[in-house]
């Protein structure tokens, strides 16, 4: 029962993930969304440690199915905030598989952090776009690579981190998970990873590429770019140090 509660609230698995995503949609402030995506899984890992129950065999299977389900759903989502929420749900489901392999609590915390930071940053980027256009829909304001070059550059880097591109921590996390899994689970995780990549490129095509429609829009301030870039660089370097030695 305790595990189910954790699955419902903090490390969401479908269909218990629906309240989690409904909450993210309901929250309007990007800062609060950022905090929820970042903190909820950490609390989930703490709760798992506190409950200290062995994870039954059926739970990793459920987690994989949930991760795959949300990955497929990502393909047709155009709202950047919702996209980030679905990606977080899909990625955080993998924490259960890592936990089932008997990972240490600290490793689990880092694992969850590595997978939740990029979607959390996407929440902030979505907020920036909503402030300028009233909405953050892919394809609605295409060609932002020309209109908002700084914002687009940061979006590209964050999406690359979110879809576990080397050498971001997500890559080593997924690789570590796959290397310890049996081959059917490994194949399923790789399928989820493939769909993330597909969804990520669809998102970039909807926002960054195409002909610029807007003439006068304020781009991200250089200070904000420095903060985002610094955070991503730290994330990358920390990931290389902490998760670089996958095996």
């Amino acid at each position, binding site marked *: 029962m305790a595990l189910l509660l954790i699955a419902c609230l903090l490390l969401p698995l*479908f*269909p218990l993930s*629906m*309240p989690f*995503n*409904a909450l993210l*949609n309901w929250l309007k402030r990007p800062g609060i969304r950022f905090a929820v995506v970042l903190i909820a899984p950490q609390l989930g890992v703490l709760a798992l440690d506190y409950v200290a129950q062995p994870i039954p065999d059926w739970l990793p299977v459920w987690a994989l199915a949930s991760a795959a*389900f949300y990955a*497929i*759903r*990502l*393909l*047709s*989502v155009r709202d950047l905030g*919702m996209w980030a929420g679905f990606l977080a749900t899909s990625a955080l489901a993998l924490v259960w598989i890592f936990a089932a392999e008997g990972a240490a609590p600290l490793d689990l915390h880092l694992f969850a952090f590595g997978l939740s930071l990029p979607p959390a940053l996407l929440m902030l980027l979505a907020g920036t776009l909503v402030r300028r256009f009233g909405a953050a829909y892919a394809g609605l304001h295409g*060609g932002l*690579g*020309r209109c908002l070059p700084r914002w687009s550059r940061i979006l590209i880097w964050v999406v*690359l981190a979110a879809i576990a*591109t*080397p*050498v971001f921590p997500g*890559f080593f996390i997924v*690789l570590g998970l*796959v*290397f310890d*899994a049996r*081959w059917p689970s*490994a*194949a399923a995780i*790789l*399928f989820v*990873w*493939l769909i993330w*990549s*597909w969804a990520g*490129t*669809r998102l970039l*095509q909807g926002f*960054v*590429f*195409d*002909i*610029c429609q807007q003439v006068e829009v304020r781009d991200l301030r250089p200070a904000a770019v420095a903060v985002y870039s610094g955070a991503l660089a730290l994330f990358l370097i920390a990931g290389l140090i902490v998760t*670089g*030695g*996958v*095996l």
Partner: protein
Amino acid sequence: MLDPMDTLAILLPAVPLFSALAIALLSARPGRQLARLSVILSVATFALAAGVLGGYLATSSPIWLTTDLGWGSIYLDPLSSIMSLLVAGISLVVHVYSVRYMAEEPGYARFFALLDLMTAAILLMVAAGDFITLLIAWHLIGVLLYFLLGHNQQRPAAQRYAFWTFFTYRLGDLPLVLAAVLLYQTYDTVALPELFERIAAMPNAPGILGFSLLEVVALLIALAAFARSAQFPFHTWLPYTMEGPTPVSALMHAGIVNAGGFLLNRFAPVFVEAGSVLHLVFAVGLITAVLGSVLMLTQNDIKKSLGYSTMGQMGFMFVECGVGAFSLAIYHLIAHGLFKGTMFLGAGGIIGEARKHDGVPHQDVYTLVVERKPAAARMPWMLAAGITVIVPFVILGLSHWLVDGDFVGQQGAIVLLFFGWVTGAQLLFATHRLRVDSPSRLMALIILSLTIVVVGYTLIEHNFDLFLYPDRVMSERLYAAASIPMAVFGGLVTLVTLAVVVGWIAAYYAMANRDPLDGRADGPRMMLYSLFSREFYVADLYTRLTEWVLAVSKRFNIWSRWV
């Protein structure tokens, strides 16, 4: 303290990476300055690659540098040394060409930064000493190619086809990861030299679902190579990448697309234990070579035609691997890289030339009456047929006998000689069809050229094989693994010979009896034409599949109320 050769090995991928970082940091400077910096560092990279190869030739000992992380190691053996030189050379040419070609394009500095990152990633891939580094480089090449092909952000077509390429590459990444997982779980190492030693010591590891482990791993590696080198049915992205900038096309067709051949060679110790997978590689390569060549002939766009030509060449490269001639595939890959790069970079000039001259040969009456030249002639057909069939056979046989008297003992060598004979005969047949002033002089010159090419090719390839596979046992085991029962082999050779000869005769009669002004086509021909023009509907099938997955995704979201 690092050995000078070790320093060179580290600097080889580090210099282009440094160049990319420098361009990113100095992006406020004028683009021309940054391009110049990039070119200078490309020259340095090429010099380093030459130094590494020279060092290997001097010492004959590979370099293997490891790190405490368990990944990030570098392994420079004959294969990676020669590949590094090729990659650095093509990258340098593309850099120099791009300085002027891309000058008017937006994102000039970004283009050079991406080009440098791509060079670094390819150099890292060929020099990777462990599976993790190989996976990192392998994956990064796909990502960087996506951004290079989509460099023009305002062209939807460029974006669409960049995505096709990216997705196919990602599809090919996954089997390689799975192969790494299986090998790591069985042999407990990701370091490639160690892994190959352990495979040699324990080739009969426990398998999966009744299949031998190494056969499954070889199949996964072959799938990764198929996707990377545009083998059927993963080929649809290649001809459409022409939407990207021409220098990127040159880099891709001359370098990146060859990665499949490199991968098969790198994992030759696995393929030695997986003969059945080599047969699959042969079959897929053959289908790709035939389809690529057929589609190349039906294109009316020079760049797309070159794209399909690359597909055909890649298919032939896999055929070579499939018969066990692994070193020949690398030799082919280098030769193809150089000539295809030249053709791409010269395509613009040819298009310009074609706008001035249509290139259609005049008919005899026009030549005689208007140009006042003597009517051209042909050699007697019996003599031409004899030369066509016998001369290539003699040249190929003698040249191979000179370098290796025992070549007829290997099935792979016979298959390749057969291909050589067909190609040589095709060349002479095409020569016979030309109407010229002096047919015998032309035929003599062509035979002389063919002799020089075949003898040169045979000698170089023989020495190249000794260079890449100094362990002769490994080379012979590869041929042996690719072999099939002698009776089946003999039957297949007879069947294919008959098919080729009957095809030639049929083509000759069809050409001889055809009215040149009659352009009508019957039903089956029209069907065949529509098949070719729709490229066998493979891309249409993928489009349908994509639409279906997207529809499923939407349906899921509607059912679950978008939460």
